[in-house]
């Protein structure tokens, strides 16, 4: 049985007449990367803030690292908010050191770790600059350093890749995956569905304040898969029994199978087709983008 890092049960939160979170329930297992998804205004950020005890829920319960959030758990948690918060008129180094100290790190240790991160993220030459003089992408990297510097057990990151170019996106992705390998639990809220497919083990999808989809990413994709296969091949596909529709998706063709037809039956027909060179044959799973649109748009 998986150990639970975060347990959220029937959370509700209203601001005046507006009900931001109606009923959200999910568990995050220790050591996994968990996706917190949803359209804008779905209640993701409010849920995160309740997990971190920034807001108190109207009802429901939250357990973090084995109990309610408290000051000692602040030091074991790293939070990257959606709206970045850095002291614009402070130097990069001072800003990082101050926020690290507030996470319980001794200043000398914070300096050593900050220097290593500056080097890794190519910020050493900028550490004496004021935060406001950095580009948006650089500020984002500084913010990520302040989230990781105290080596948290639990990371809650809201849109970690916004404002980053592909190179820096890869850099941060590698950084987060390294944290994952070290056993850090990561809760990631993002709109970039390909990142969810690439990085997340499990997810919850929140829509209009309610959790509407929850489970392992692979399992959800299979659940939403049609009876179809994706084929990449050189040559024309022959007419095949049991295939009622063929469509194109990039360089691949998606074969939609009739009810009761198995992939093995289709594969056999393709293998027997003269002059056809099969490069790839796989179950046509929907992307998380497709699933998101289907669930939220429904």
């Amino acid at each position: 049985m998986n150990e639970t890092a975060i347990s959220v049960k029937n959370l509700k939160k209203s601001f005046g007449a507006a009900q931001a979170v109606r009923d959200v329930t999910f568990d995050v297992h220790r050591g996994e990367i968990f996706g917190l998804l949803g359209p804008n205004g779905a209640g993701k950020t409010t849920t995160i803030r309740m997990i971190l005890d920034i807001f108190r829920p109207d009802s429901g319960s939250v357990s973090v690292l084995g109990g309610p959030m408290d000051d000692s758990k602040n030091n074991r948690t790293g939070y990257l908010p959606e709206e970045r918060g850095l002291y614009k008129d402070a130097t990069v180094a001072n800003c990082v050191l101050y926020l690290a100290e507030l996470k319980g790190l001794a200043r000398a240790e914070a300096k050593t770790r900050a220097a290593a991160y500056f080097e890794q993220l190519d910020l050493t030459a900028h550490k004496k600059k004021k935060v406001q003089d950095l580009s948006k992408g650089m500020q984002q990297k500084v913010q990520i350093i302040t989230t990781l510097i105290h080596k948290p057990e639990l990371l809650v990151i809201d849109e970690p890749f916004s404002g980053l170019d592909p190179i820096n996106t890869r850099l941060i992705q590698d950084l987060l995956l390294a944290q994952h390998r070290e056993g850090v639990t990561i809760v990631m809220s993002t709109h970039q569905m390909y990142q969810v497919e690439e990085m997340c083990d499990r997810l919850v999808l929140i829509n209009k304040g309610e959790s509407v989809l929850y489970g392992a990413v692979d399992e959800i994709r299979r659940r939403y898969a049609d009876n179809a296969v994706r084929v990449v091949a050189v040559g024309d596909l022959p007419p095949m029994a049991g295939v009622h529709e063929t469509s194109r998706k990039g360089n691949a063709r998606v074969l939609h199978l009739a009810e009761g037809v198995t992939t093995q039956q289709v594969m056999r027909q393709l293998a027997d087709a003269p002059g056809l060179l099969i490069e790839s044959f796989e179950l046509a799973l929907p992307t998380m983008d497709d699933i998101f649109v289907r669930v939220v748009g429904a």
Partner: protein
Amino acid sequence: MRKIITIIREEYRRRVLRKEFIGLLLLPLIIIAIGTVIGFITSESLDGENRGVVGVVDPRGVLAGAVDARANDGVTFVRVKGAEDGRAALMREELRALYVLRPSFADDGAVDAFYLSKPPGNDIERAFGAYARTTLLNEFEPAVRARLDEGAVFTYQTPDRSRTFARDDVLTFVLPILIGVVLIVSLMVGAQYLMQAVIDEKENRTIEVLITSVTPRQLMAGKILGLTAVTLTQIVTWGLGATAALLLLRERIPLLRTISLDSSFLAAMGALFVLQFLMYAAIMVAIGSAVTDAKQGQAISTPFILLAIAPEFFLPALFIDPNGVIAVILTLFPFTSPFTLAFRYGMTTVPGWQMLVAVALMAAAAVLAIVAAGRLFRVGLLRFGQKVPLGELFDALRI
């Protein structure tokens, strides 16, 4: 505690390293330094104007029987036989000035004064007046003459003699008011800065990161204590500068020797200021956390600022009756206490019990404000871009 100290240190460092703070800190010191230099130059110049030998021609012998010469604060008066002799001595620069008493001097005190380049200063005129009076009173004993000349000097005291007050000490009247004004200005600048800092952290979203690192109480305590330390740095620096200037000028400007501020007043003012600063800081933190932007913060904080300077609106009443009911109420009311006490101290003897009660009430008000601000701080802190409904604020204040 470690996190609170980190916040105090950071708030202090960030504030005192700002150019605006250094400018604000140095400006009064520069003014004091310039004032000191001007004081030196003026006292030197006045010394020249008010010293020397003054010839006196007394054709009617009004001042007959007087001693021929009398030194008075560096001025020496000598009798000269006639106006012509006197003018000749003046031309030879043996005299600083020449006073020729008109025949009507006994009736109207008319004197023709002659000088070479600069007219004699006021001190010489005053010294001559004293010289003339004591000369006319020559038949009395010197001590009696001096007493008649100076008149009575009243020193008002409390029954236990713990506090005294002399009406003639202009600086003893002005200085406490000046101290009160400086403290009020420092209070306003510091408290407003604190409110702005909270609003800035809300606007740039730093608050969300902070609040997942420290508790709202730690954050508020660190900010308030950090800013209190900044303001005390300012006031102690100004105080040391002013004291140094006073000590330097004291020997040269006799008026400065009359300054006396008793320790009970200074202790009461110090305690009232620190406590009032804590109270205002808490109020400003609460306002800063509850509003959406600086403009709104200014609008809500203005009535609180007006309260602190409210004694100015009651100045006529305080002048007429510095121990009246209004004066006592304003002394005890925490928002108006320090300024009123400073004002009254220069005019009367404020009873010790009033100072003690004022300090106690201020301490209670400061504690109340800090507790209330702590509750409002958490509620208002994360309402970005939206006003916190009054109902929510009242709910937060409920015990």
